[in-house]
């Protein structure tokens, strides 16, 4: 469906995209994951037609979009701060796209009311958008994006302005809703939890290039390089290999390791251990840590078993 083909974009001598290629299939949710300021949002705006490309092409269903203006692409873009129109009420915000696509006002209102009901905002029609809470505004933005049945839904850090609890709830809810409608979606985020929670495939963007693009399970099983491994949450990463934490286990019978640091966390502790000149990071829950409590002071020694078959070598 969506095909980003060797797209390049420079901004002040820095590559935001460098011969970047990416595809999103029909009904697929792809997350574009990368650190803040790496050009993710710019890529999204290029796909939406709001920013020109320096080189390359963006195609949808085989059609080059270079000369297609944003309004004719039939995509929907959801913004970080929702971009609700302050001079329109909730219903008119949701209607906006339908009216632009020449749907008669009464029918548009009907459709908007129906979709507002499905996002749990029945009866919010005449509310001013300034009076909505963060979660409500987010739902209105989603309803406004979905009501036009876009060919592609573009989401720009859609949950980053919400509090942590609401974010988890809405990620699950939105993921299901988008899948239920069978809409292709491209989600931009710097939060790996969000990418893993919602996406079918995750593309890792670093310095204008896609470093790796795979399913969440595929990424975890075989990160392509050290940067990718670190970014998706591996703590034990070297230049040439990464080690999942499941391969590390404290055991009385295992070779001894020295406790370098012990950091108490809300849900347990983080240990830095060294064995044979190699440093390992290990997280323990309170329950796992309790038998070892006496031995976990810095400078003490504890048995550490390392599963040598679990090492993932970078190619």
């Amino acid at each position, binding site marked *: 469906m969506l095909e980003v083909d060797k797209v390049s974009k420079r901004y002040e001598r820095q590559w935001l995209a460098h011969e970047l290629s990416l595809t999103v299939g029909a009904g697929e949710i792809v997350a574009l994951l990368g650190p803040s300021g790496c050009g993710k949002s710019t890529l999204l*705006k290029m796909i*939406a*037609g*709001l920013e020109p490309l320096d080189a390359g092409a963006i195609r949808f269903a085989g059609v080059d979009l270079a000369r297609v*203006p*944003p*309004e*004719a*692409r*039939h*995509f*929907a*873009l959801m*913004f970080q*701060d929702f*971009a609700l*129109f*302050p*001079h329109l009420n909730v219903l008119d915000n949701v209607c*906006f*796209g339908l009216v*632009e*696509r020449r749907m008669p006002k009464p029918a548009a209102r009907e459709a908007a009311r129906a979709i507002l009901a499905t996002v749990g905002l029945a009866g919010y029609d005449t509310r*001013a958008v*300034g*009076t909505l809470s963060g979660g409500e505004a987010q739902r209105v933005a989603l309803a*406004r994006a979905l009501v*036009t049945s876009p060919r592609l839904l*573009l989401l720009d850090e859609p949950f980053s302005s919400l509090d942590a609890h609401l974010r988890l709830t809405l990620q699950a809810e939105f993921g299901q809703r988008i899948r239920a409608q069978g809409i292709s979606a491209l989600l931009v985020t710097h939060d790996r939890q969000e990418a893993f929670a919602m996406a079918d495939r995750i593309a890792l963007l670093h310095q204008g290039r896609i470093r790796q693009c795979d399913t969440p399970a595929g990424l975890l099983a075989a990160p392509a390089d050290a940067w990718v491994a670190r970014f998706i949450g591996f703590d034990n990463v070297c230049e040439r290999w990464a080690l999942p934490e499941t391969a590390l286990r404290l055991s009385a019978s295992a070779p001894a390791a020295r406790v370098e640091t012990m950091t108490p966390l809300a849900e347990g502790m983080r240990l830095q251990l060294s064995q044979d000149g190699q440093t390992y990071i290990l997280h323990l829950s309170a329950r796992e840590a309790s038998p070892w409590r006496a031995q976990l002071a810095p400078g003490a020694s504890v048995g550490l078993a390392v599963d040598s078959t679990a090492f993932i070598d970078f190619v």
Partner: protein
Amino acid sequence: MRSTRVLALLPLALLLSLAGAPLARLMAEGAGTLSPAFLFDPYYRWRLLWSFTQALATCALALLFGLPIAWALARFDFPGRRWLMRLMMLPFVMPTLVAAMGVLALFGPEGVTGVMGQDTPWLLLYGNLFYNLPLLVRSAQEGFARLPASRIMAARTLGASPWRVFWRIELPGALPWVCSALCLVFLYCFSGFGLALILGGQRYATVEVEIYTLVAYELNLGDASALALTVLAITGLAALGYAWLERILARPLRGMALPRSAPTGWRQYALLALAMGLTAMLALAPLAAIAWRALWAGAAWQALADPEVWGALANTARFTALALAGACVFGLAHAFAMRRSVLLGTLAFLPYALSPICVAFGLLLLYPGLSASLVLLIGAYTLLAYPFIARGLAASLDAVPAHLPQAARTLGASPWRLTWRLLLPLAAPALRRGMAFAAATALGEFAVTLFLSRPEWMTLTTLIYQRLGRPGAMNQDSALVLSCLLMLLAMLAFVLIEWQREEARDAGGR
């Protein structure tokens, strides 16, 4: 983007044909006569020197009276603060003739105060302050209010008394705002015409009045254009200073501002009382005096039955409506074209900075065949009125967050639909405010009308001037009554403007 740049051609054509070309013609004409010997002519030297002195004196007085008011408005929260801020807007919509009549009603013959001020320089200075004190207060107030609280707090913890903090931290911090206002005060006072014509008398008239007299009564175009050239050079410098300071003001200040608090202690209450008293005396008293004198004018109210008055009213209404329509067209075009363009933004300020007398004189020189044509008159009105719409609208369009148009585009709105459904509704309050200002400008226009109109195109302002010039108490009183009428019309525009502001604030607060 390219299409909006094309829009710039419309206002550029207006600026070029009605401001640029006439001024160029004026310069060519004046350059021939202007020489050191001309400037050393004792009579003209006195005119220039006095214009300069009264402008500087107004700056000094505005500073003296304005800084306490501005500081009190920026720091204190008190009942009626909002009204005081509003009152500061009132002079901006008042025609110069109303202000001049107000000062006469206070200090003229049979003035309310009983003090006779005619043929002294004080009348003109008082009239200047009526307009320019609010200008300085509003600007300085913003400077004080925006100053990061951390700076003030740091100074206090380092041992500075509030008085020392004012001199060492607050005033230096607000200085760009104060100076930019002073540039405008100087500019307006130096090139002021209406006030000086009526309040200056023979001796204390400014160089603008001299230009008018030379053109209208002595037909001495050479000397007039040499004087106009001098005015243009001096006001041009002030305008450049203002434009340069504006760029400094555009830089955002970091940090939270100091929240306003209720005054405490007798000193603060005394300062507040002083601020309110000064505002009432300088911005309100002339208007109140007109109303009071008009109330007792009795028989003079019969002037309203005079067909001449009805004709003038009809002309004022007609010219205002036409100028407003023109101002909307050019204002919209300029506003959409000037977004994110510094050059076009500065050009929209040009008509404010130009002396109306110089423009009108230049138009006469350049288009002698059109000297009494409606097109030229309305064109000049439009030129003076449209920047209010252009600047207000552009500021409001720039304030629309970038992602709103982007969202609308992705939802299927074409650029044209986007303008119609999103940008114009969002900028509508600014547009209406700009229109009210433009209408007030056209309503009170005096200098250009005096130069370019025909006798049968008498407007309310020129009629007041004419009545004032006729002998007899009855004529004086009818001028007063007509000024009162003009004042009420201007207040209507004021109410429209402030009512809009209120609505905008409510919407923003939600």
